[in-house]
């Protein structure tokens, strides 16, 4: 019976790992770079939701919308003022800017939120759903359902919409895309806005599941999301979702069946093993360049 309890707990955690991975993958698909400040976008979403729901006392739905909007705005501002001016610079420069962004956002959050670990109140008053010995919290079900729905929407967007194709083209050859008439400024802006919205949604949805919030929470979550993206194959929407759920479940299985000491390092072991033996991940594809 423990198997199903661990599976359900792992899937619940995997839901927000997947959302984080999706945010990372979006940026990666459009700009071929890793956004190391994405964990802090998650944190912005979580604390915005906390403020609106727990401090101001407005309904959770309003808190969720506010979190998504706040994180979207952060994403757009970062793209417009930090990334776009240096978009042509080497990737390492862009990545280091996102690392700096991560520290700045964390530092700013500590000014207001650094003195405590905050508890997000329960959103649903109905209590857990018990099936046999498996205990499911309503918020976890919402999180998993949202993640799956969103991944379908994103998959379809990349496959069938002009914006999705423009993102892909921009990622492969920015100059070529620009010469073909793609408004790369709009593409970047949309990508960062969407990535921000995903981070904000992840923060708002997972805050009641995590229940404990602190300014450094994004760093922990980012690493898990990163592991999910690596496992799924960086650049793959489906891979990010599958990777997220897989990392969540694997953590729980390792913690129970092997040792609790290994539970939290399992994500890092996954990153190492995948990069060494299977660098393209579960759903990654080989880069093919037409010459």
């Amino acid at each position: 019976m423990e198997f199903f309890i661990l599976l359900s707990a792992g899937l619940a955690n995997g839901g927000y790992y997947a959302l984080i991975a999706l945010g990372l993958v979006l940026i990666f698909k459009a700009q071929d770079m890793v956004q190391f400040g994405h964990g802090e976008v998650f944190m912005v979403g979580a604390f915005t939701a906390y403020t609106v729901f727990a401090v101001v006392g407005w309904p959770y739905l309003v808190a969720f919308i506010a979190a998504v909007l706040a994180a979207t705005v952060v994403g757009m501002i970062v793209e417009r003022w930090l990334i776009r001016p240096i978009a042509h610079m080497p990737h390492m420069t862009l990545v280091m800017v996102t690392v700096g962004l991560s520290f700045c956002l964390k530092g700013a959050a500590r000014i207001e939120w650094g003195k405590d670990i905050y508890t997000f109140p329960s959103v649903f008053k109905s209590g857990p759903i018990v099936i046999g010995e498996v205990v499911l919290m309503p918020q976890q079900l919402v999180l998993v359902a949202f993640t799956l729905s969103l991944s379908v929407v994103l998959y379809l967007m990349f496959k069938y919409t002009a914006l999705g194709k423009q993102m892909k083209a921009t990622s492969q050859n920015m100059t070529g895309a620009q010469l073909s008439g793609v408004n790369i400024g709009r593409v970047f802006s949309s990508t960062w806005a969407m990535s921000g919205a995903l981070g904000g949604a992840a923060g708002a949805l997972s805050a009641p599941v995590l229940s404990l919030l602190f300014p450094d929470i994004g760093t922990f979550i980012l690493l898990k999301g990163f592991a999910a993206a690596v496992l799924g194959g960086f650049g793959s929407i489906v891979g990010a979702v599958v990777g997220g759920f897989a990392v969540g479940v694997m953590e729980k299985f390792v913690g129970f069946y092997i040792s609790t000491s290994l539970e939290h390092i399992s994500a890092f072991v996954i990153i190492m093993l995948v990069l060494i033996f299977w660098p393209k991940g579960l759903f990654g594809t080989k880069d093919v360049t037409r010459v």
Partner: protein
Amino acid sequence: MGPKLKLRVIGGLFSVALALMCGSASAEVGVTDDTIKIGMFGPLQGKVSLYGYPINNGPIAIYKEINETGGIHGRKIEIVHEDGDCNPQKTAAAVKKLIHQEKVFMIHGGSCSGAVFGGIKEIKDTGIPFMIMAATMDKLATPAVHNIFRPALSGSADGMVMLEFLATMPGVKRIAVVRHSNDWANAKSSKFMAQIASRGIEVVSDEEMERKATDATAQVLRHKKVKPDAVATFLYPAEAALYTRDAAKYGLDVPILGTNSVMDLMDLKKRAGGLGPVKNFYSAAFVQAPMGDFKTAAYRALMTKHFPDDRPQSLNLYGMGGAYAILEALTRAGRDLTREGLISALETLDGTHAGPMTCKLRFTKDQHEGCVGGTMWTLSADGNSIIDVGAAYRAVK
């Protein structure tokens, strides 16, 4: 005696008197005619800063209060802060700066054991009086070091309070343990683990939980599988809340014990999502009551008065005992204050009022742990108040 010789003698005596007067006023480092400079350090910035100012501000409120009444022997307490960031290297640098650059008279600080250990060599080498704020690592003050004093429970004493309580709980023969893998948890659990078998209790599961973990499913399920009579947790409050929440969620219904770091049971109840998960929780404690209880109302008022923009919290109480010990020793050391005089005065404290702490403080030449006993708390049946159960188990609800 000729007039010339008389003049020389008077002149000489005047010089000696002047030198003595100057000497008595400011011979000791960090002491002036009207101030005594005390250095404080702790994690003031960064990810663990919630253990910085909230803890340091408790004693500061007491020092500010005494300053308002004229200080000690006409001298006011002046506080100098340095950030140690819960990091041994940074703490060593902070201690050096306080001693050599800020030239403080004494130090009252340190919340993170590992970090304090980083600065301890400088403190020992210079002989500066050091009152540990809230760090619990045993070897900081045991065996006694001439210039180092600890007013709060050491880590092992905290663990032993839990052990003695467990040993008196009816029917408890097999327990499960969950702890962090850091020096803090080691300090609290090592003696507990070493001595538990001698009380006829077997540890049937010993699990690890990372700091900032997001759930405790694996730990709880492993515990549940071995059917323990009770669980001992050596976890910080946030993680203890997660453990109790998940224990309730997965039906692990046994008494759960926590260290004094979790003694704010009202806060634990809030973090765990209500009374259900914590109704069978017992925490070690070394203060009379958490912040918010009527027993600590005076200290809450003190915090509100001197830090009106901050939320009074139980962490404010942790270092207050040390502040009362310092003030009492400064009073006993007299106007001619020296570092050695203060150390000698501290070693005379016996039954000294320690503010919100349960202990009366007692230091001797060979015993620099001022408080060696504690009590256990639990929540009342309705969850609205805290019951002081005592050092041994008794049914209270």
